[in-house]
């Protein structure tokens, strides 16, 4: 059960203006700059994974527009809009090069950033990313599932889902969740969870790339999805986490954080 470590310092909360789009961001730790792009339901979370990373990095966790109660950005119509938004965020924060980590939907955005601007990245870590069309695989349609079905699809250990559960069932919370679903659907309803142009472009990535994958991922299984990424991203290394489903950074946070630290340490 992932919990924030008692001795870990509280993250700092900041509101940013990124070229006219307002962004909520959590940050903490010291060390090389690392930006984490969350997946669906991961906005505004500072869990054990982030706390562990903050022991080695200066970690920044921005919420995607429309996620975690932040205002939606009507101009975001395509996944590449989000990638440009994060390049703008790097500029706003005056970060020349960062270690970029993205999970699931955030991994998709991170990969779009990498094909555009590998030179801005010291490393790239993709945790069970979606975003490419994989021959022989159709991502299960989460938008058509109720909560128990989603938990069943996303988590190997269903108890881990509690870490991402909404705080309550108030009208505000439900409206925020709806806004978040709409923000994701806007860029991923059809084609569902991929950009038809991305796969061919992955060969452009020159950043050292680590792929972290849950052995029991049912949304994007190791075979064939991880294997497709290994094939397309030059020199990518794959680490599989035996006790995880689609969200190993939630299900095995210490192990995934350690793998990232080790990978990034090896580069420097």
């Amino acid at each position: 059960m992932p919990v924030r470590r008692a001795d870990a310092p509280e993250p700092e909360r900041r509101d940013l203006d990124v070229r006219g789009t307002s962004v909520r961001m959590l940050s903490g730790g010291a060390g090389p700059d690392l930006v984490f792009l969350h997946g669906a339901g991961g906005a505004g979370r500072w869990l054990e994974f982030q706390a562990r990373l903050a022991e080695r990095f200066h970690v920044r966790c921005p919420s995607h527009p429309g996620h975690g109660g932040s205002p939606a950005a009507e101009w975001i119509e395509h996944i590449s809009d989000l990638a440009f938004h994060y390049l703008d965020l790097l500029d706003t924060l005056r970060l020349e090069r960062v270690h970029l980590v993205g999970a699931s939907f955030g991994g998709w955005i991170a990969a779009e950033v990498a094909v555009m601007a590998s030179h801005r990245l010291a490393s790239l870590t993709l945790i069970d990313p979606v975003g490419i069309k994989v021959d022989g695989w159709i991502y299960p349609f989460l938008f058509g599932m109720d909560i128990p079905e989603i938990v069943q699809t996303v988590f190997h250990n269903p108890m881990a889902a509690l870490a991402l559960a909404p705080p309550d069932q108030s009208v505000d919370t439900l409206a925020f969740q709806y806004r978040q679903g709409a923000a994701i659907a806007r860029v991923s309803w059809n084609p569902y969870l991929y950009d038809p142009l991305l796969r061919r472009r992955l060969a452009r990535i020159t950043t050292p790339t680590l792929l972290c994958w849950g052995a029991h991922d049912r949304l994007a299984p190791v075979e064939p999805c991880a294997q497709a990424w290994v094939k397309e991203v030059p020199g990518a290394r794959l680490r599989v986490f035996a006790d995880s489903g689609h969200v190993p950074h939630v299900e095995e946070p210490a192990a995934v954080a350690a793998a990232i630290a080790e990978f990034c340490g090896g580069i420097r």
Partner: protein
Amino acid sequence: MKFYYFHLMPYVMEHDEPSSWVTLSNRSYDPKAGQRLYHQYLDQLEYAESLGWDGLCVNEHHQNCYGTMPSPNVMAAMLVRRTTRAKIAILGNGLPLRENPLRLAEEIAMLDVVSGGRVISGFVRGISAEYFSTGVNPTHSRDRFYEAAELILRAWTEPGPFPFDGTFYRYQYVNPWPRPLQQPHPPVWCPSQGSSETVEWAAKRRFPYLMVFTPVKRIAQIYGEYREACERSGYAASPYQLTVNVPIVVAENDAKARAIAEKHVMWVFNTGLRMHPPFWRPPGYMTEASLRRFLENPPPLPSDLTFEQADAQGYIVYGSPATVRDKLRVFSDELRAGIVCSGMNGGSHEATLEMMQLFAEEVMPFFREDAAVDETAGVGR
């Protein structure tokens, strides 16, 4: 008051699946049974005209047993050649569901020309589940609706050819042949569930507003909002801009009517509208304001609606001819609705025909002060 006969063309069946929409396997559909049903349903619509109904209504729904009319224009085409007097109301076409809505402008114009100007063209977004069946992005639903409506109206009214450069739809040449017979275009109706954005949009254009399967109290509230919106646009709403769609059951006495309603009308709500919860609420289909309004006072899911609730809240009109007349007075006198759309189901084709005849003889004549009025004059365009 005007009476329109409304058909869903359901494939009535019982099943234990969680949803009658989207995922209910079409293995349950028997085409031979379907053939019989389609002919019975079309016979009922044609019979309605001969009994004096003013309009015949078809509508669009996809991938379900609730209503087997994925293309309402196909059904309308069958009706225009078999009828001579009644309006043919397509309630409606799901504009955002089309990749090429210019095709709709063409199809409606064809129907209007062939029917001699009897077509009423409903513009709808399609209900939530439709976005799962068609793959159209629900977050684009509203914008596609407005854009497609603008395209179709311009295609009907502006001499072609002209270019159209929208966000979702783009054409170098908009120039449909035929043009519609009704001028400036066939009346447009807006069947809707009461979102304030749609109410405003429809009122501004004098497009009649239609509430489908809604409690009377809520109809009264939305009608009020619609009338106010008309006044803001500088005119008073005609009764023929306010249409209500309510299932009617009439039988020789109240008890018999109630038994039929409990069985056959409640099937529509409890089984026909049984839906896997995510299909009710695709992301971005509603505005956040509409969602909040809905969450603050959520109505029961149709599948949970009991007959007692449906009865008490006015989802259904049932009874002897005298009782049905009294209940319809609520719509004509209190809600001041000019048009009642209703389907009937007596449990069998023959029983349905008998019910229709009873209604036409014992109920309809009591609401005919406006027999000489053309309900489409000056509204819908």
